[in-house]
């Protein structure tokens, strides 16, 4: 039994929305398909249908459950047809006399044989031709030879002939995905408390799971390590490698880093490792003439290792914020950026001094003189001592941020006596001086 077809989606006030019904049905069935009516000529085919995937399940019990759900949703007289082929299930649902019509396994063809040919919704021209030939029931058509059907009724006739033989080749539901790899080990004679001592077991589990993943041509995007505790319960740790991979060494490095910080609440008597999300191991098309192409794969792997070990690969997204410190947000990049080629030429390759900001502005004491009404620094005192200034140019007066965090800053570009170019800032409201950074 593979298919459950549901009809009679009509409530007291009229037809119910099949999409809404499918949402309710999905709580009980793994896969639901909505087939809007409109194909074919018969009135029955205009009625929307709901399909449920019953492969690997008790079809009758699933049909009863779904009928119950439909009744709760307001359907007056829902019907279900259960069969191994979609065409038999549809005929059973639309022409069955009971609430649930079961087609015995393996007898789909015999079961639909007595029904008139119209239950298969033939095209009008073909229906007339069949009627003129004297073919009235599905059994009549199914009894014919395929070559004769093709000769007299064409391709459409052959298609209908297949349906009459309950040989329905329509693929309502895709193949079920294979179960994701997992491995576990439990023991009863002893318990372990130190996560480090579990590494040997975890290593073997990781080897088994990664081998299964590699055989599927996939890499794990997320995997979970589960410790079963001696007094019941479990502790889960999820891992997110920087790129999908099935590399045992990478997994173990991530797990080892995590175990260094894990404090388990109880002794452990079992470990499970399961894969939660997988992605295909993609290969990237590159340019054979590119000098970096040959090494892109090892570069990507090295970057992925760095990203797994508390590092970020960043590229700037610059705004026009007046404050340099708030001008840039950093976007995290994946390790696959190693495959990207950047064309650079001309003046952008020439060295130039650029401003490097200190992680935080450093407060300083400044001696100033007045120039055109502004205090201009002459020398300043930081953690290293006093620095005399050869020149101080500015200020650049910057203000704004009234809606969030108001600021008003005077920026000075200064040349220290040792030649270092520094940027000093004075908060125009509080008068506090800081070193912002230097040109390097």
């Amino acid at each position, binding site marked *: 039994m593979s298919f459950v077809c549901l009809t009679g989606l009509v409530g007291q006030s009229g037809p119910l929305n099949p999409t809404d019904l499918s949402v309710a049905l999905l709580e009980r069935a793994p896969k639901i398909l909505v087939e809007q009516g409109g194909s074919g000529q018969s009135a029955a085919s205009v009625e929307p249908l709901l399909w449920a995937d019953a492969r690997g399940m008790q079809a009758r019990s699933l049909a009863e459950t779904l009928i119950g759900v439909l009744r709760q949703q307001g359907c007056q007289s829902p019907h279900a047809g259960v069969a191994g082929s979609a065409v038999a299930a549809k005929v059973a649902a639309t022409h069955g006399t009971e609430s649930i019509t079961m087609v015995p396994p393996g007898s789909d063809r015999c079961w639909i044989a007595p029904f008139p040919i119209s239950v298969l919704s033939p095209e009008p021209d073909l229906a007339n031709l069949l009627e003129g030939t004297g073919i009235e029931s599905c059994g009549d058509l199914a009894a014919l030879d395929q070559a004769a059907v093709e000769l007299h009724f064409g391709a459409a006739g052959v298609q209908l002939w297949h349906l009459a033989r309950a040989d329905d080749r329509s693929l309502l539901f895709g193949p079920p995905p294979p179960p994701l790899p997992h491995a576990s080990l439990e023991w009863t004679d002893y318990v372990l408390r130190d996560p480090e001592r579990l590494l040997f077991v975890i290593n073997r589990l990781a080897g088994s799971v990664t081998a299964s993943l590699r055989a599927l041509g996939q890499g794990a995007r997320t995997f979970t390590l589960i410790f079963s505790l001696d007094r019941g319960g479990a502790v889960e740790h999820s891992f997110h490698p920087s790129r999908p991979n099935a590399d045992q060494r990478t997994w173990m490095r991530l797990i080892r880093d995590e175990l260094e910080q894990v404090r388990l609440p109880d002794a452990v008597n079992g470990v499970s490792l399961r894969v939660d999300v997988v992605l295909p191991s993609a290969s990237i098309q590159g340019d054979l003439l590119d000098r970096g192409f040959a090494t892109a794969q*090892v570069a990507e792997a090295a970057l992925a290792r760095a990203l797994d070990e508390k590092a970020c690969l960043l590229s700037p997204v610059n705004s026009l914020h007046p404050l340099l410190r708030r001008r840039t947000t950093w976007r995290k990049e994946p390790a696959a950026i190693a495959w990207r080629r950047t064309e650079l030429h001309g003046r952008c390759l020439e060295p130039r001094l650029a401003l490097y900001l200190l992680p935080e502005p450093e407060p300083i004491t400044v001696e100033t003189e007045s120039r055109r009404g502004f205090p201009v620094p002459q020398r300043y005192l930081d953690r290293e001592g006093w620095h005399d200034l050869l020149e101080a140019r500015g200020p650049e007066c910057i203000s704004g941020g009234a809606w969030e965090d108001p600021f008003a800053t005077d920026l000075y570009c200064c040349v220290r006596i040792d030649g270092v170019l520094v940027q000093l800032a004075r908060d125009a409201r509080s008068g506090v001086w800081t070193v912002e950074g230097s040109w390097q």
Partner: protein
Amino acid sequence: MPPARAAAVQALLVHRFPDAVPQHSWSRGTISTGVTALDAILPDGGYQRGRLAVWSPGTGTAALLRSTCLRVVAEGERSAWIDISRSIIGACWQEGPLLIRPDTPVAGLRAAEEQARSGGFALVALEGADPDTTAMVRLSRAAHEGGSALVLITHTTSLASLRLASRPLPTEYTWRRSPLGEPSVVAAVKLRVEARASGWFAATELAIPVWYDEMRLAPDYSFPDRRGSRPR
């Protein structure tokens, strides 16, 4: 490809092409700094691949090393900049080299070691670290194994095959003048760069321009443009 098949292919290649050079040995040589005057004072005309070089922190070091990273990318190879000090701002960062920002200095050293050892990067630059001797040994070995030129900006110079220092010459700065004839901004900076290696010392002076971020005023009803107004 399964490791067994890869090993079989490698064995077949060695058998059929006995003179073939392994991939990690292709790129032995030097990487030009992109500055002719600087290349001229280096023992091999650039940073040696597979070797460790150290710049002492100072004005111009990051600028010259950034330029080299860009040139490496322009020539079709790959460079990485590991920013431990977290002082780079986006406005001055040009796309091309890969910018890696570790959470901790130790993570930065490990990242540098990984990238240098991988063989996927012609140049790896590490800024903001202060590695001890053990770390320098590891980095030096990684560079040697991967064939990358590993350049550090640090005060630690042990095990470095090349030591570079840059010192600004403030009296020879080029100033841009204001309409009133006063010096307004520094247009270019003159640097004295010294290169030291075993049995080698050379120095040169070079001028490099200064790049300023665009200062954008933010007109705001409560904090209006204050240029020209008297401070409160």
